[in-house]
């Protein structure tokens, strides 16, 4: 096992275990913190894949901003103390089983499928591009040139979400 592989397995194990703990903890704050840990491990895996920029954004946006807001809301609503879960009862169990089975099937299928050659970059391409254009340039150039229109449409979608949130939060505008 090479060094890179060892590092990968370490972070993969950390992310899976943390994700498991995230859904099994009764305490919402502990759950949120385990989710942060999962996101960290994922950032490390992105960096192993030479996607430094994505790794940094993973920490900056998800672990640093979104999860802090999650915690903020959990604390503000004082959900912090242990409570029973509403996922009990036979209906909850059936839903759990169904979703679990679906996810397991997806995983099995994904593991067996050989991806189309068009979607597979030759080994080391990303490292080379990062070397040439810098960590940010490798993302920025395609995002703002080749995929500008999808990017703009996404931003309009986000704007609509922001406007919707403001309208919902403010009773009198």
């Amino acid at each position: 096992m090479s060094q890179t592989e060892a590092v990968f397995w370490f972070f993969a194990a950390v992310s899976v275990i943390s994700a498991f703990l995230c859904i099994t903890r009764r305490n919402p704050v502990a759950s949120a913190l385990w989710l942060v840990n999962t996101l960290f491990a994922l950032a490390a895996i992105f960096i192993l894949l030479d996607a430094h920029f994505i790794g940094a954004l993973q920490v900056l946006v998800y672990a640093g901003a979104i999860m802090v807001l999650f915690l903020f809301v959990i604390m503000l609503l004082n959900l912090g103390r242990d409570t029973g879960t509403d996922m009990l009862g036979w209906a909850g169990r059936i839903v759990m089983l169904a979703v679990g089975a679906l996810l397991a099937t997806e995983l099995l299928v994904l593991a067996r499928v050989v991806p189309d050659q068009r979607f597979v970059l030759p080994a080391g391409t990303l490292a080379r591009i990062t070397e040439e254009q810098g960590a940010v340039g490798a993302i920025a150039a395609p995002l703002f040139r080749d995929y500008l229109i999808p990017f703009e449409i996404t931003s309009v979608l986000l704007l609509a979400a922001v406007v919707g949130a403001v309208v919902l939060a403010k009773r009198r505008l």
Partner: protein
Amino acid sequence: MTPELKGYLLVSVIKLVVVFFTLLVGVAFVTWLERRVAAWIQNRLGPNRVGPQGLLQPMADGLKNFVKEETLPAQADKTLFLLAPGLAFVPSLVLFAVIPFAAPFPLSFDFSLPLLGQFAYAGPMPMIVADVSIGLLFILAVSSLAVYGIVIAGWASGNKYSFLGGLRSCAQMISYEIALGMSIVTVLILTGSVGLTHVVAYQQQTVWFVFSLTLGFVLFAISALAENNRLPFDLPEAEAELVGGYHTEYSSMRFAMFFLAEYGALITMSALMATLFFGGWDIPFTAWDQGEPSVLKSLATLVVFVGKTFFFVFWYIWVRWTLPRFRYDQLMGLGWKIMLPVALAYIMLIATAVWAFDALGLADGALYGLALFGVNLVALFIVFRVLDSGRLIGQQYVRREGSA
């Protein structure tokens, strides 16, 4: 392992240990400096009994904290309560890893040790603990994690004052992080790279960013005060309202950990200001420090870097004992209604200016920087003029007073 890898690891570990040890000693020194400068500003003496000029006072405080009793509140969430000081402590120190602190050091070696084998390293050694390709993003990412320690501490204490402190710091740090990030974007526009080594190199070739990005520096400095929970933005631990804020329930070494985290973040932020806007280890008015690496150059630039950092540490303390505390709604109003729009408009302004200068055919250099300085002076004048005349922050207060 190859000799090169072993050599690299050896150099990295030595740099790590030396830098973090120095940083921790620096933190102890800064706690002493804070009390002495505070005393000086308030026309008192301050701690001057333990050692020469009271320099050993931090040791005495450390010893006192070690032997004090650790308390655990009955209402506390035990695991998180114990974890929080560490969560606060780590990000403030990790940040320093990506800051270049001196000119490259000429070091090459190739030797063998019994049992361990051969070590090889081809210099010059960059004087930075980890030269990551995403330097500035790393800084933003890690500094966004600093809030966890405080929030968790506030929540896990099971105390209303702590809890309010935690909530306040959460909202405050998220708000000002945006302004902080936006003010760094202008640095990225000029440098065209996120590596801090490049930021320093670019400033050496042109002028320091404090000239070409003056307003950016002002925004960064204000946000930095809020990010570090320093006066005038120390609402999370406002002692007049919240006893001690998030660390009310902490005692002995755990309290000391928060203390260390706070001053560690202060030093790191000062070093960051020196690096981003004051040329890092660059010695002004000479190109001598950019030539072939030598021991003397490394030492001289190190002294310059420490001097600049020290200046900003002093500036932090100076601000703390000069300005009164903001009210919480004023703090939020300043962050969202002033800092963020100004920072966004400033990015547009700098991008336009860079584009216009490129269209005019102005080459990168001192003239380029000075032209930007002119643009900045105009922008600064407008911003301060509007802020000064409009009383944007105090509106609610004024209105309530008028209606009463």
